[in-house]
């Protein structure tokens, strides 16, 4: 019997516990909620944006340790990024999980999710906050520019 599970490293538990960025913004340029249909987990993200860059982020995350830790990393790191930067980080994270791609260099904390590669059903737990952030940024762009 395997007495350990490298998926649940201390770093993941600590990030989940810290819940960086948890809460709500007083005024948001864009917001979105996404669900994981597998388990009903939900991430709601709000962003404030100036000059196409994130100036503030808040999220409310209901989910497993992986989802909460990923949301916490996002809450810590997203400010200062633009939509293209978040798209690149999300693609890099997805590539790391699904295709053995390297950890996105700009956000080295994401390396804690490398053991999740072995569990495809958990990839969307990690990706859900980032996809919610992208949806919030899209809404922000629509409201600012009216484009789709």
């Amino acid at each position, binding site marked *: *019997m*395997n*007495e*350990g*599970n490298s*998926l*649940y490293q201390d770093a993941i*538990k600590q990030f989940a516990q810290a819940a960086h960025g948890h809460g709500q913004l007083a005024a948001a340029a864009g917001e979105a909620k996404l669900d994981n249909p*597998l*388990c*009903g*987990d939900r991430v709601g993200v709000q962003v404030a944006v100036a000059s196409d860059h994130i100036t503030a982020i808040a999220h409310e995350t*209901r*989910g*497993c*340790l*992986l989802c909460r830790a990923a949301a916490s990393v996002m809450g810590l790191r997203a400010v200062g990024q633009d939509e293209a930067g978040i798209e690149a980080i999300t693609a890099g994270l997805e590539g790391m999980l699904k295709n053995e791609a390297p950890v996105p260099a700009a956000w080295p904390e994401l390396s804690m999710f490398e053991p999740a590669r072995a*569990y495809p059903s*958990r990839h969307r*737990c990690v990706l859900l906050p980032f996809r919610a952030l992208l949806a919030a940024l899209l809404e922000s762009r629509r409201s600012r520019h009216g484009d789709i």
Partner: protein
Amino acid sequence: MSASLRDEFPLLAAAPQLHYLDSAATAQIHRLALDAVVRHETTRRANVSRGTYRLAEAADLAYEQARQTAARFLNANSADEIIFTSGATASLNLVAHAFGNTLKAGDRVLISVAEHHSNFVPWQMLRARKGIELGLIPVTASGQLDLARLPELIDRKCRLIAVTHCSNVTGARTDVAALVAAARKVGAKVLLDGAQAVQHGPQDVRALGIDFYAFSGHKCFGPGGVGVLWGKGELLAAMPPFLTGGGMIGEVTPQASTWAAPPQRFEAGTPPIAQAVGLAAALEWMVGQSWPQIHAREGRLCELLIEGLLRIPGLRLLGPEASAARAPIVSFEVAGQHPHDICQVLDAHNLALRGGHHCAQPLMAALGAEVCTRASIALYNDEADIQALLDGLGFALRELA
């Protein structure tokens, strides 16, 4: 359960270290069912109700014999009352469309808060299509249908009561007799979603006094991709088809079509032939088992599990504490721990359980839980599985703290 019975299930026989406690999602396939599928596909594979060559005749015979076996499993009046579908979800959607099309705006269908989404969403869709009223039987704090509320929910507008035979989350059994008695007073029909009940023995639809019964093959030791809808003959005869296409018509002209009689009216296209043959082998095997003994053993395991779970600090059991009031399905939540994380760690201990909302979000909300961990016990489980789960849970909660 004895090792010899476990050995009748090929996957379990090949994985002696596995503690499989997710039979409510998919039960393991019995060797006889698997053998029947292979035998059919290698000796009788042909389409049914279409060919006159000997191979096609053999396929026809096997398929219709499977229908007779399913009728015996349910104690139906006739094999013509058995419709093969792709599973319980398809069976329930079939009723929601075909019987649903006989309803008119203002008619009421009564379901319960405890339904699996497959017996919830089709009726919401019918409400949107036809303007029916959709009533909801609430549940008690222990997740059982609160039938004391029936008098205020049932009146002459009620045409159908469609509820679970037992919950896929709490295992809570439905008091079918009370439900049928209330339905008969107003002339309503009764549909039971038997997806979780069939794994625990053959059913008697005539004794139950109901009108429709739906179940899936993969939950009663048969193959995936096949299910059954049983309906009373006179009801099926009065229903229009759901899906249309080959095999379900009387005559097609450029102007219009007529329909075959049931059950073919409801089996458009090529049915799941080998799967039905495999399912019949599983059902035949089930009919030959000693169910009072199996129920006693499943009940003991359920009690053992509940006793052990209730000793874990911070654990809340969902559903009835009395094992007699539930099928051996036990769901629980642990304060501060997510079921996906718990199940992930349990998997490292060779324990297969499901965590999540179990496709029953209205029930979860009514029970004050968002998600939960579920252990479901079948006839091949034993005390070692239960002890492994209790030990594994202790480890998981330490690991995740």
